[in-house]
């Protein structure tokens, strides 16, 4: 069995979204929410936990696919899990420069 932390059904059928702050590393954040919860609300709760707001250039992505989470903000978490990011494991980072 993998030791990866992935989404799992908790009592009450809540889902767990595991969010890695890939800028700083460390233990990932966890947000628990029901499948009917809008993804936007999960994002808002994550930012509240970070005690900061969304900034230009912030990136939030499904770790397995690299797909942008913000573009799914209006979907229900359960639908999003079924169609876009099965493991509900996200990465978060702030802007990066380069060329």
């Amino acid at each position, binding site marked *: 069995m993998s*030791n*990866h932390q992935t989404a799992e059904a908790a009592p009450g059928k809540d889902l767990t979204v595991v969010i*890695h702050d*890939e*800028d*700083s*590393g*460390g*233990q*990932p954040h966890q947000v628990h929410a029901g499948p009917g919860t809008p993804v936007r609300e999960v994002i808002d709760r994550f930012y509240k936990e970070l005690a900061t707001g969304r*900034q*230009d*250039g912030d*990136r939030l*992505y499904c*770790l397995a696919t*690299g797909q*942008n989470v913000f573009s799914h903000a209006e979907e229900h978490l359960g639908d999003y899990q079924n169609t876009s990011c099965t493991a509900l494991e996200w*990465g978060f*980072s*702030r*802007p*990066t*420069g*380069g*060329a």
Partner: protein
Amino acid sequence: MTPELIDPEVAAATFDTHLRDFFTSGRGRGEGWCRIDLDDLHTVVQLPAVRENGTVDCYFVRLGAEYYDVWPPTVAFVRKTQTGEWVEAAEGTRWWPNQRNAPGFSFGLHPRYAYPDQSIRQLVCFSHSFDYYLSSHTANDPERWRHGTHTVSATLSRIAQALHAPNYIGPSGDRDS
């Protein structure tokens, strides 16, 4: 601001702590990742690159902690010679990736970059690589490496994102060296 070398013991301890953290809690715990320590300040990290068809190629990135973590680690794609030495990878070999510059953030790979000090060597060009700050590039304030916020996790995670389809095509060639 001119980079200054960090006390080697302090740099090594911080570097090791952050790398352990990355391999325990971050992407490094996934398949295809491993860490090969060269000395207290230098580590080679094997990381997986994923093509559009799902094929996984492994690359080796040498990280240096001489300025860590006030500055990001030095970064270079490397290959191992028959004598066991790690040397910079060249374009056209299977150790240098063919990568499109569109991973959702600014990122560039320059196999032979002319630095202001006249040296010509590799540049893995993004603001979480030390050599970026030695090149003629300038990061906007929100993009700069922040001591106390960024760790080697930021460096390795960005490279992993850049080396994932559709941003990653495959090795730049078939040659070994």
